């Protein structure tokens, strides 16, 4: 069965101050499809990503999100993850004292235990082998595994660690929030190639980016543009090229400024 994530008329606000950010987002992503999400700074792309993952910083005010017909918004964040949703964060937090390897082992075991309460988790040798393979395929140094999660990581290292986690957890729908930013040229190639390998019939992707460079590796089936908390324009791969060339002004003119709340 092909997993489908359906976002319908989603409205969300910042919990702390009630500022409304998402103002009616509609989008359907299927396993195997690659969607690019572009749009000016502050248009609400990261907010959408975080809302889909259940970040308590945001409140849903209207709309719904269905994962294979089930209400995603009713699920806790950890359930969403185990159901196959993954978010590669734009700005991952650091977790002092918890090593990447230890963290990922717990994440895998949480999945195994959810499937089978009797499960003893993945045997350590098997886990170590799997980690090595994934690290090799992403050009990640093995010493990464023993470092505290994101603590003192460079921007590029954080992004690689996010992709490594994605590779290990094998999501059905992956949201990548500017995974291509903060990388130097070599790192960009490695990360993009890594993501390229992960995409395929098994994984649907929502790739949030400002640049075409990432899309040279993973050709999107659809490109969407978000402005002021709504998807205002959708098209094929050519839309991204068009945006790179022309910027967003033509869209601003076409759709105007939203009325102030």
């Amino acid at each position, binding site marked *: 069965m092909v997993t489908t994530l359906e976002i319908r008329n989603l409205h969300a606000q910042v919990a702390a101050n009630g500022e409304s950010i998402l103002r009616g987002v509609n989008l359907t992503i299927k396993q195997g499809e690659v969607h690019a999400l572009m749009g000016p700074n502050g248009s609400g792309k990261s907010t959408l990503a975080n809302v889909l993952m*259940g970040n308590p910083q945001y409140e849903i005010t209207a709309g719904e999100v269905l994962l294979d017909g089930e209400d995603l918004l009713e699920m806790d964040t950890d359930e969403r993850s185990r159901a196959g949703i993954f978010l590669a964060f734009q700005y991952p937090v650091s977790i002092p*004292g*918890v090593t990447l390897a230890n963290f990922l082992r717990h994440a895998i075991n949480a999945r195994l235990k959810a499937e089978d309460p009797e499960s003893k988790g993945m045997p350590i040798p098997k886990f170590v082998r799997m980690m090595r393979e994934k690290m090799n395929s992403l050009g990640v140094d093995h010493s990464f595994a023993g470092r505290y999660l994101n603590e003192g990581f460079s921007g590029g290292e954080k992004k690689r660690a996010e992709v490594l986690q994605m590779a290990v957890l094998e999501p059905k729908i992956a949201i990548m929030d500017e995974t291509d930013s903060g990388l130097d040229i070599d790192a960009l190639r490695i990360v993009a190639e890594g993501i390229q390998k992960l995409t395929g019939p098994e994984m649907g992707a929502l790739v949030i980016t400002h640049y075409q460079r990432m899309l040279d590796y993973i050709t999107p089936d659809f490109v969407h543009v978000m402005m002021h908390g709504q998807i205002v324009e959708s098209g094929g791969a050519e839309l991204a090229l068009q945006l790179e060339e022309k910027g967003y002004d033509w869209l601003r003119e076409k759709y105007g400024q939203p009325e102030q709340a």
Partner: protein
Amino acid sequence: MVVVKRRSDALTQPRYSRDDVTTLSDKQNEPQWLCEARRAAWDVYEQTPMPHMEEEWRRTDYRSIRWQEADVMISANGVGEEVVPAKNREPLVGDTQGGLLVFVDGKVVHHEVAPELTEQGVIFTDLNTAIQEHSELVQANLGKAVQAEMGKFAALHAALWQNGVFVYVPRNKVAELPLHVVIYNTKEGASLLHNLVVVEENAQGTVQVDYASAEAEKHSAYFGGTELIVGDAANLRYVSLQEWNRETYDFSHQRAIVGRDANLDWVIGNMGSRLTKAFIEVDIVGKGSNARVSGFFFADKNQFFDLDTQQNHNAPLTTSDLLFKGAAKDNARTLWQGMIKSLPKMQKIDGYQVCRNLVLSDDARMDGIPGLEIEADDVICSHAATFGTLEEQPIFYLMSRGIERPHAQLMLISGFFDELLQRIPFEKVRERLTEEIEAKIVG
């Protein structure tokens, strides 16, 4: 007219007398110098009032202790080391260690030292034996760091300590393998043990002391004294882990004297007891030395921990680095009071003093009071106490990978302590402590 209401007939101090001092010295057949030292300490004890509202005790009310239970001297009744939980007895590394000394209810029930250490002249034995066999060596060092004058309980300790540990690493020798001491009580009541560690010039040693006791209903009291004498160019790693039962009141003085170009790496863990009042002090008396003092504590339920630390820079070109990390949950209370001092004209001093507190429930209370008294000007000193709770965004991050909330919280709290646990040089001990921390989080 003011009616002065008399206190009830509850005991307000432990019931000891000068006769107890004489009886103890006689029973242990102690040399003259020691009998005199004990009697002098008793005089100090008698002249010193019970601590109450003076600055260092102001926030610590130990008066819930039932002295009629806690002052009864614990005496051994034939139980052996098998009563000590395996986790405390386990070798620190692999299956070898330099030595193991186990006390149960104050009595030595196990004593072994690796022959290669004995051949080098290393002494690792209980203090009573050391006094019989190496009287001069003990006399030269006992009381160098901890003295009766330091307070009421220090005086009581000096007058009535029953036994303890003597570690001696002679000049230029390296005690490669760690020495492990386990102090375990099965009975309720009072115990007073003295740990004296002497590492001579250019010598090296590693010592771990574990304190624990069986669950109990009645109150216990521990009056502890620890002296770490680190000679010139010497190197000492000392780990002390306190896991008394929840009815124990621990009053202890622990002090290190660090010579010239020497290095001290001291880790202190405070997990047990009903109440802990520990004075932890490092005196750097020789030029060019470093002392690192690391502490972790986790208080839950009705526990109360009061840790006083002091770093004294009495020589130029010295560094001290103190990092404490603690957590409190339920209605536990913790207090850390830190102080860095330097003598005048001591240049090039680098002192660091930080206590990080993680408050895990609304009813828990944690306080931290850093302090500096520096009389030199070419000095780098930083001091801070920080307070935080578990943050929502890291929890969200862990949950976003499929980890359930309670487990995410547990990982974050363990992670908070990990930096400190990594300073313990024994993997098995780190694992054991991680488990104990997790048990407190979940419990």
